[in-house]
């Protein structure tokens, strides 16, 4: 891949679109969380591709992709915690039934 950035950007766009489709169609909350991770990964791929082949290539893109990965881990932990609490209170993991802020 000598100096061609557009395949990486296209792959990132494909990942983002698949993740968006899955996050809006799936009903299991765990799978919705996974699809959000997929979208974050598409953005990460863009960051790392620009860190090597951007207009001003530098390692800053990789550093910020590390921050994004940290953020994704925190988001997954919070998401699973909320999911477990909702399952305990309402007995479901279906996102269609998560329509109340207060039990």
């Amino acid at each position: 891949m000598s100096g061609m950035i557009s395949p990486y950007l296209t792959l990132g766009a494909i990942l983002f679109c698949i993740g968006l489709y899955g996050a809006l169609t799936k009903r299991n909350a765990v799978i919705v969380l996974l699809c959000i991770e997929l979208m974050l990964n598409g953005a990460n791929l863009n960051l790392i591709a620009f860190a090597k082949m951007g207009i001003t290539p530098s390692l800053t893109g990789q550093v910020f992709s590390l921050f994004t990965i940290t953020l994704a881990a925190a988001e997954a932990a919070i998401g699973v915690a909320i999911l477990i609490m909702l399952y305990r209170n309402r007995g479901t993991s279906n996102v269609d039934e998560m329509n109340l802020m207060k039990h």
Partner: protein
Amino acid sequence: MLSNLADFFSSGSNLVFFAFALFIIGGAIFMISFTKVVHMVISMAFTFLSLGGLYILLEAEFVAFVQVLIYAGAISILMIFGIMLTNHQEQEEDEVKRPLHNTLLGLGVLALFGILFYAIQTSEFPAQTAVLSENNTMEIGMRIFTAHVIPFELMSVLLTVAFIGAIVVAKREED
């Protein structure tokens, strides 16, 4: 276009890119189309691993290993725990009940991808590759603790707050 494709397949790193891209897209598509939830998570872990390989191709070795550790390791296992703690054998079988919603959403996502693809294809990117540092991990460490030390500390605070919050949220309320 065809000459572009011929050029694309002429070098080894392009073939590696093609193989990893195939694995990534295949894993994501299988994740969408599987019916059992655990199979979905496994195929997603495959996608995360292939993305790590692509990062190595982009000379981001440290990020590649972080990807394998955090995504393919921690997040996949966390999701499997989430599945085991909520529903054991419930399948995603009611997807076909709303075909209109799914079709419209598919069209919308395809339109979004079309816009993104058009924007990528019409943009001018200079064909250059930077020579990044030989010692990738050390250079990233230097940058984190000099230029990006404030975001790094903010991220550590955020991570602490998020995990304490997760424990407080998931704690069983006895009283």
